[in-house]
């Protein structure tokens, strides 16, 4: 079987959007894909050693709520951390893996994790805050792999 390639760009830094890149990358690796994730802009949050990812109901009318909450109330202090806590509890009760666990599985499966150097500089991130074993590169680095990929996803 010839090895297929999957290239993913991860651009979002919220708890909910952390799942698609790590779920797809880990699964693709299990299926024998050579996989790379390029983290850019807010997606760089997914590479932090200490993940403090949150979900926000604001601007997200599709988020299922246990009870209807008016938009202005969703903006109150503490709402975001409460929603995040509830989401994490829900995921745990349903046997959904944590982001940390999925990321660890990706690392174990040798998924290539590339951080966008430009956004690291732009946001003045300290690379010591990122997990070990990641690479740094730019758009050309991404295309070196993505140009040969069978599937390319922008998340």
């Amino acid at each position, binding site marked *: *079987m010839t090895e297929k390639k999957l290239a993913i760009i991860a651009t979002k830094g919220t708890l909910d959007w952390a799942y698609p890149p790590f*779920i797809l990358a*880990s*699964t693709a690796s*299990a*299926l*024998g894909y050579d996989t790379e994730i390029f983290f850019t802009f807010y997606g760089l949050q997914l590479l932090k050693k200490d993940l403090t990812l949150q979900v926000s109901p604001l601007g997200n009318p599709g988020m299922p709520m246990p009870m209807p909450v008016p938009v202005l109330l969703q903006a109150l202090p503490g709402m975001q951390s409460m929603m995040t806590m509830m989401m994490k509890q829900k995921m745990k009760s*349903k*046997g*959904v*893996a944590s982001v940390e666990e999925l990321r660890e*599985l990706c690392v174990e499966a040798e998924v290539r994790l590339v951080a966008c150097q430009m956004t690291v500089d732009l946001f003045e991130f300290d690379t010591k805050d990122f997990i070990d074993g990641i690479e740094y590169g730019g758009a050309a680095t991404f295309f070196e792999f993505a140009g040969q990929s069978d599937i390319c996803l922008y998340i």
Partner: protein
Amino acid sequence: MADFDRELDASGLNCPLPILRAKKTLADMESGQVLHIIATDPGSVKDFEAFAKQTGNELMSSGEEGGKFTFMMKKS
């Protein structure tokens, strides 16, 4: 006598964990050995078919018993 070599209980785990655990367990097995998998995720039925098709491991049988899904997979 058990008609499998290894068993994986993925009960309570959700997508994609049953597949990832199965892949990991298969990696420690030898070609021709059979893995018995138990899962509760209804999505795992289609997923294990797709996993077998793409990895070349043979899904010998699958079934459902009291809300649990079981699979027999032979390592390629």
